[in-house]
């Protein structure tokens, strides 16, 4: 169970950083006996303790049986999906909501194994228009307008 050991290590580090941040919170005259740092410190200590338990448990398990690892998408593919979201955040204020949405649909569709067909393009474009109609026209929520302002 190597991945659990890694995760336990990560939460352990997180608890240490979080504790340190809590410890550095400025002292206020308006504070109560517990203070802004009181519960966060308790949470950090509890998380550290649980991380240890998780790591020890995983080490013990490892000796017993090597778990069959399941199939999963390669990390690069997963990162790709996330990147599309990031690209949306960056581009939407420039190219505008309907275009950005159409592009997001097109990219996701293609990435998830769809072919680059006329149908796919049509779906993406109508998706952009549909979402724009739904959110901006019908519900009146301002979405990033970009060049369409």
């Amino acid at each position, binding site marked *: 169970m190597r991945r659990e050991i890694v995760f336990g290590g990560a939460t352990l580090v997180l608890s240490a950083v979080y504790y340190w941040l809590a410890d550095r919170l400025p002292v206020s005259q308006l504070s109560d006996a517990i203070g802004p740092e009181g519960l966060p410190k308790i949470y950090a200590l509890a998380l550290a303790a649980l991380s240890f338990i998780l790591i020890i448990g995983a080490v013990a398990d490892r000796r017993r049986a090597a778990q069959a690892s399941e199939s999963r998408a390669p990390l690069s593919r997963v990162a790709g999906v996330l990147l599309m979201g990031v690209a949306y955040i960056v581009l939407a204020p420039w190219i505008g909501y309907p275009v950005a949405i159409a592009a997001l649909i097109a990219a996701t569709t293609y990435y998830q194994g769809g072919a680059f067909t006329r149908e*796919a393009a049509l779906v993406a474009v109508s998706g952009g228009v549909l979402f724009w109609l739904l959110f901006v026209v019908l519900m009146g929520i301002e979405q990033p307008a970009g060049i369409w302002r």
Partner: protein
Amino acid sequence: MALLLPFTYGMDPTVAVVLLAATYVGAEYGGSIPAILIRTPGTNAAAATVLDGYAMKQQGRAGEALGISLYSGFVGGIVGLVVLVLLTEPLSRVALAFTPPAYFALGVLGLSVIGSVSGGSLVKGLIAALLGLMIATIGTDPVTGTSRFTFGSPELLSGIPPILVMVGLFAIGELLAQTGEPGWEKASADSARIRFPGPAMWKRIARPQAIGSVMGTIEGVMPGGGGTISAFLAYNEARRWSSHPEEFGKGSPEGIAAPEAANNTVACTALIPMLSLGIPSSNSSAVLLGGFLIHGLVPGPMLFVRNPEVVTGLYWGLLVANIAMLILGYLIMTPCLWLVNRPKPYLMGFIYAFVVSGVYSIEGSLFHVGVALGFGALGYVMRYLKIPFLPMVLGVVLGFLVESNYRRALVLSSGDHSTFLRDPLAAGLLLVAVTFIVVTVVRHLRAGREATA
């Protein structure tokens, strides 16, 4: 529903209130549809519905799950309405019994079900819950007003809204996990239709619905409750009293009926503190309160004396809204079901587009979209490590309630912890919570021993 508010400015107050009430009921119910279909609760209170709702969807029983959810929501809404009409006066006094120690105890009670929604590993569930509690500490400190863990970002000043955590973990996490997985089989025509429960099912889900309605009534009365705690408690109790507890988490109709009845009961009973005390208990009831104020209607005991026609109008509006919910729900679910049965690549694209648009709409913030993406990545990691989401959701939703009332209670008692035992309501709730925790730990230990033996 905040969007609708401006449209009511020019209307007659009673008409405006009826319209707002109808939207309110719809908004409170609507969160369950995405919870079942795409594993993304649209409201905090719909988080418990994800467990068995999505499990049923995966078994190709989405139509049945939606039917049960709608029917149970309707039953819960009607029960809540009856309570609202008949018991507003006595129950508004119950609301007054809630002091800071009692609110703290209530939050602890909500957290005590963590073990039951942790799946196999209690340790992992607790880790998730702690991460959730930590997320809830981001923002303005409830006592001193200093900012904590915001890294100087004004966007984080009011904290991370729980909806971002849920959308990230569930919806975006699922998108990431589905990447590279093969497409699914076309759904059979049978599962693509809404199926209302028949008489046999009515009988089976009557008990969880009753449990849900009772829990919902209790939580709705307490200002600030919001429906999440009662949905989870109802789920927990429905399992305890069920004759098929082993099906819970694997697509049990009872596991949908209980939380759905609970959160729709809350939608109505939450109006008790709003009408009688002017204190909203959820975001959507806060908007309703704003609608009242704009029309010069001041909630409070005098509302019933000065504007009885508005109160009566509201009751009728809620009744009509609940019936309309049944019909509209049916009409809208069919296209939703059709949508989720499209070829996978298209569906993924549309869910992604829907998620970024929806998250942006909350406050018009691309920063929020980024936060949701971050939780999506975390959700992917948690899925891979089999760390349950729901404890984290509970931590995020309840963390602030627990911390602020814990510290508030101690400020009022000058640091004396016995205040939690001297308040009878707080002591009672804490006792129940401790019982839950002990039972869960014992169950987990026993299961662990059997696994090793």
